């Protein structure tokens, strides 16, 4: 059974206090869970459901709706490529193609070295600077294939020596 750390637990309880109904705190608690566990596993959903006293089904309905909650352990650098209208018109698919060609991964997948993962993202509210993507929490806009290549190369250089992939913490992970 997955447990929140004491510190996170305290944070969660404080968050719950802010809402008139406990179930309203599902999204903030899922953010906490993702920060703590790296992704939203079934066990993480259960931990959130127990803290909120709601059926685990309700937590899954929320976590499954939002792409910002990872259903698989993400890579060290999680590329979230917007594919909504403005971004698609301005080349989001070519960005995703580049990732497929050069990193060998599709949306929802992680590179074998655990460095990169990619997700088709819903609108990032940057239509004016499309195409846009997030690398972890950083926003990158006006993307081109060259710009993306440079960003990826830079991340590869920055990457610290390999450390255990977050998948190793979870038995239920596929490789």
């Amino acid at each position, binding site marked *: 059974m997955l447990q929140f750390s004491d510190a996170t637990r305290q944070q969660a309880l404080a968050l719950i206090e802010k809402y008139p109904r406990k179930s309203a705190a599902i999204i903030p608690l899922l953010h906490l869970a993702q920060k703590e566990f790296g992704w939203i596993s079934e066990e993480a959903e259960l931990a959130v459901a127990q803290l909120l006293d709601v*059926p685990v*089904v309700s937590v*899954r*309905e929320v976590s*499954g*709706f939002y792409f910002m909650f990872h259903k698989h352990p993400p890579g060290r650098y999680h590329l979230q490529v917007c594919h909504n209208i403005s971004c698609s018109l301005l080349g989001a698919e070519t960005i995703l193609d580049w990732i497929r060609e050069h990193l060998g991964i599709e949306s929802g997948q992680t590179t074998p070295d655990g460095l990169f993962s990619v997700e088709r993202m819903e609108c990032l509210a940057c239509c004016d600077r499309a195409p846009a993507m997030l690398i972890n929490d950083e926003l990158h806009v006006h993307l081109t294939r060259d710009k993306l290549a440079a960003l990826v190369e830079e991340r590869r250089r920055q990457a610290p020596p390999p450390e255990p992939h977050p998948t190793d913490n979870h038995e239920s992970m596929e490789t």
Partner: protein
Amino acid sequence: MPELTIDGRAVQVPDGTNLILAARKLGIDVPHFCYHPGLTVVGSCRMCQVEIEMGGRKRMDLACANQAADGMVVRVNTPETIKARKGVLEFLLMNHPIDCPVCDDAGECKLQDYYMVHGLYQNRLDVPKWHKPKVYSVGPRVILDAERCVLCSRCVRFCDEIWGDRQLGIFGHGSEEVLINYPGKELDNPYSVNVVDLCPVGALLEKKFRFQRRVWYLKSVKSICPRCSRGCNIYLHVDQDHDYKQPGKRVFRVKPRYNPEVNRWWISDRGRNGFDFIDQNRVGVPRIQDEEVTWEEALGRAAELIRAGLKTWGPQGLGVLVAPSASNEDAFVARRLLRDLLKLEHVDFDVPSSDQPQADHLLLTDDPYPNRQGFRDLGFGPGEGGMRTADIVKAAQNGKIKGLIVAGTDLEGVLGDRAAGLAEKLGWLICVSYAGDALWQRAAVGLPMAVYAERPGTFTNFKGKVQKFEQALTPFGASQPQWLIWQRLAQKLGAKWSYEDERAVFKDLSQGKPAYDTLDWFATFGAGPGPYNDNWYMW
């Protein structure tokens, strides 16, 4: 009581009535998927859009989520609303497999019906459809085809609001959104098949009914569920005319019938799965020992045995057990014969059952029989010094009771192997039965009985409500209604009375009894006048 105008006609409805129900009062059907009168309003399907004019301003809005107000003008069918609904349907059908020819729900599918009215008849998409789980078991009694689902969430709300456990959810996002059970959880509550009635399309289907009959071959008959003492109002769906598959199977499924005083819109899975006895292991020819005989011969023999038994053993040597699965009419005529005419003492109806329901907060009671209260109300039971069931069985086992008459009892289920032994210890056993069980095999006289669905009658539920069921089927073989068997036996034993039919019996038994006054034999009673049609498909 606000008064409003819907499609040019004025109507007055109670405060708080939504526009779907207000329109229904005028016989106008507002298309809808997600709205159901027994569940909370979510307004998620957008199918019930109507034009609402109020205080000089016109808008398109949902009929389910808007309440009738004084002076409101509502237009259900205008070029704009029809266009809006067409748009909704186009989205719903985008990824729908359109496999009506192999779908069990064809013929009672709202998507199909509305498409016939609003259809675009031309697919504007050239991208492949999304695929989702098909032939997926969400629970022991329900199967899911997620591609047919319109995500109305009726089933989700049923589990949440009516049963009280979230066993289903709608997961994912956009076109990938899918209705399914949470991993490791099953849709296994004792009312799970109600989601099949609620499903407006063919996404959730009853496993037991799957590929059994096209729905348009089914005849729908008003009936009462005999599986516990609640007396839920049901429709029996029967087909006696298409024998191409499973010959001999006549009852195909049970559907709920709305009754606000008894079961509202729901019935239990126990009730839905409880009709096998109507078509299985039936007996249709009277018997003397192992020999098949005519009714005259069998009844003559039974009367002989009873007369001789009374002479040699006296009333104390005879016992009678009648299961309260029999109707009030049966109980009344049985009482006239057994207690009033023959003056038997050891007469009881409190027989046990091997098929005990588990009571819960919704509908099920812990009484397996539908008419125990009716037997009580009609004074059926032991005379002064008469024994109750357990003692009668004991007395039969140790030879104190020599002649035993049983009707519709499940002694084999309760006593197991001892049931056969019981018959051997008796002087004679007269068995009135619909099933060829161990007692029937060993009876001196076997009188085949029609089941409740094969004749009309009334049950009294545990709260004392008297409810009528209609005849759905012709009696199996030469079997006859229980009351008629008692009556013919009574005539052989010297009774002067006779009834023409069930209605005549009911008229006699209800005389001067206020509990029965509310019931009019000829009325199609049940829900009574109200905003909800009693047909499950119309909700």
